[in-house]
């Protein structure tokens, strides 16, 4: 059972990032960390491989400046190796371009299963994984809250607004996982020490046979035309309990049509 996990390396959300005033792109200079959303995919993959008793977890990431800090974290958790695509001509790539690049890299690993997060923490369009599946001609199941491999097939509990759907699919397939799917482990000390010597294959788009015109700012079909601050949230209503708090809370929820 070979699993590829797409892991995005992002600027540390704890340190407020800044945008390039010219392109409105996120400035990605400096250290990047493993997107928390992808820690779930990594954990899920490790558990599935563990259960299968054979195979390994390969990470795939597209990142500027050959940055590997986030990958090392995922390798320390237990992934076996990583493929990193880093190329100056990728600057300004949109989600479709990213999907093309990641799909080409994933293909080389010949996985039985591909995992990604439902959406990233910094870009959060939530569109990249399904585009990868489409390019690779594979089935995709999104919003997984439980993933199992049974014989040669995939069983997923897919989170919906009402509850969950049970979905079965043949392998290979792509699955996007939610934050509820598994609890990511902390890297162990041995894992941390081993991470340094695990292989990270760094590729350019030429290595992947991708034409520079399809990616980067030139190939992008998305353009960020404007960025504005989100509206301040109106201050909430404080319910002081004068014996009728429960009724007022119910009223409020009814008004929101959540009850």
């Amino acid at each position, binding site marked *: 059972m070979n699993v590829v996990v797409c892991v995005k390396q992002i600027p540390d959300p704890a340190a407020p990032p800044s945008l390039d005033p010219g392109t409105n792109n996120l400035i990605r200079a400096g250290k990047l960390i493993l997107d928390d959303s992808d820690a779930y995919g990594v954990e899920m993959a490790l558990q599935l491989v563990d259960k299968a008793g054979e195979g390994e977890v390969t990470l795939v990431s597209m990142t500027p400046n050959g940055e590997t800090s986030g990958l090392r*974290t995922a390798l320390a958790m237990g992934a076996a190796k990583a493929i990193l695509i880093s190329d100056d001509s990728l600057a300004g790539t949109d989600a479709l371009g990213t999907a093309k690049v990641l799909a080409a890299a994933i293909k080389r690993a010949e996985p039985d299963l591909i995992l990604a997060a439902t959406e990233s923490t910094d870009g959060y369009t939530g569109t990249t994984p399904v585009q990868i599946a489409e390019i690779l001609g594979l089935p995709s199941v999104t919003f997984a809250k439980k993933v199992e491999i049974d014989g040669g097939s995939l069983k997923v509990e897919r989170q919906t607004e009402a509850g969950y759907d049970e979905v079965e699919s043949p392998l290979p397939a792509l699955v996007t996982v939610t934050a509820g799917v598994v609890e990511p482990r902390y890297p162990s*000390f041995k894992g*941390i020490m081993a991470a*340094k010597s695990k292989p990270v294959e760094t590729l350019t788009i030429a290595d992947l046979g991708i034409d520079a015109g399809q990616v980067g700012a030139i190939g992008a079909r998305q353009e960020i035309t404007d960025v504005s601050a989100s509206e301040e949230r109106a201050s909430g209503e404080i319910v002081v309990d004068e014996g009728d708090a429960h009724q007022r809370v119910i009223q409020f929820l009814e008004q929101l049509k959540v009850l």
Partner: protein
Amino acid sequence: MDFRQSDEHLMLREAVSAIASKFGHEYYVAKARADERTEELWNAVAEPGFLGVSVPEEYGGGGGGITELALVAEELAAAGCPLLIMVVSPAICATIIAKFGTDAQKQRWLPRFATGELKMAFAITEPDAGSNSHNLSLTAAKDGDIYRLNGTKYYISGVDEAEAILVVTRSGVDPDTGRGRLSLFVVDTDTPGLEKQVLPVEITAPEKQFTLFFDNVEVEADRLVGAEGEGLRQVFFGLNPERILSASLANGISRYALEKASAYAGEREVWGTPIGRHQGISHPLAKAKIEVELARVMTDKAAWLCDFDGDSPAAGEVANMAKYAAAEATLAALDQAIQTHGGNGMSSEYGLADLWGMARLLRIAPVSREMILNFVAQHSLGLPKSY
């Protein structure tokens, strides 16, 4: 010279910090006040192997050194959970056993130090021999195949949580100097004849301190660690890690205090502007920050020397200096953090004043400020000994 943190050390810090932050200072204080142990925290840190980082790999440990162990202790303390037991169990006891133990002893204890399952207390201090270890009077007398231990130890931390105690004993007298010859024994805490009495102290910490009465305690010969009569030299091997880990606890407390203080100073307004704008508040905090960072550099250096040049005289000198600097810095940092909080500094809610006992302890133990100054005066400056 490279002062950058390696990726491995950063990852280790992050992982320990993430675990410890889930517990935090409130958990630590609640456990201490309820006379309970911080078992959940201990297990959570032990699970990924973080308490066994310095145990050799062949015994299931991480194969790292005191550098890594110090970093774990600092991150725990920085999250508001300074664990005194780390100074004794993995730092002193595991180090001494790994260095001087027989194969059988290493097999017996190291794998469980590696997993954190085993805690061992360390007993050297006696009512009549604190700073002066040459005065130890707890005796170990050979009696056929066994040794009999008689005497008293006090201020021994964590005996109730420990499975065994590494005890420093006097097993003879050097005929030339008249000084005691010391030997080390691992004594199980439930050995008959060993009485344990809680010694109450004004420190809010989950570890309790004990007075130990040894009344004809029988110890098998296979519990003697290293060579008989060589105890002093062997203990010194554990004392550098002890000093370094104490420094790490102090440095972690300092970081915790300064983080709280700067957050508070940035928010609290008394005259329509954050109090952190008043230099009467910001300068002492800046000064404390500098002193803490200086102590941290010295602690790193001490840990590096301990791991890579442990036999050099500098290893002991620098470990002592780091311990001194870190203890002084943490008292200044915590004091200023409390001052910055005004009345809130003394509240239970803000979680600062309850650390005073621990920070204050670090000026006294495991080696007092004065004994370090004696050491530096004598060994670093070549001044005559006063005692």
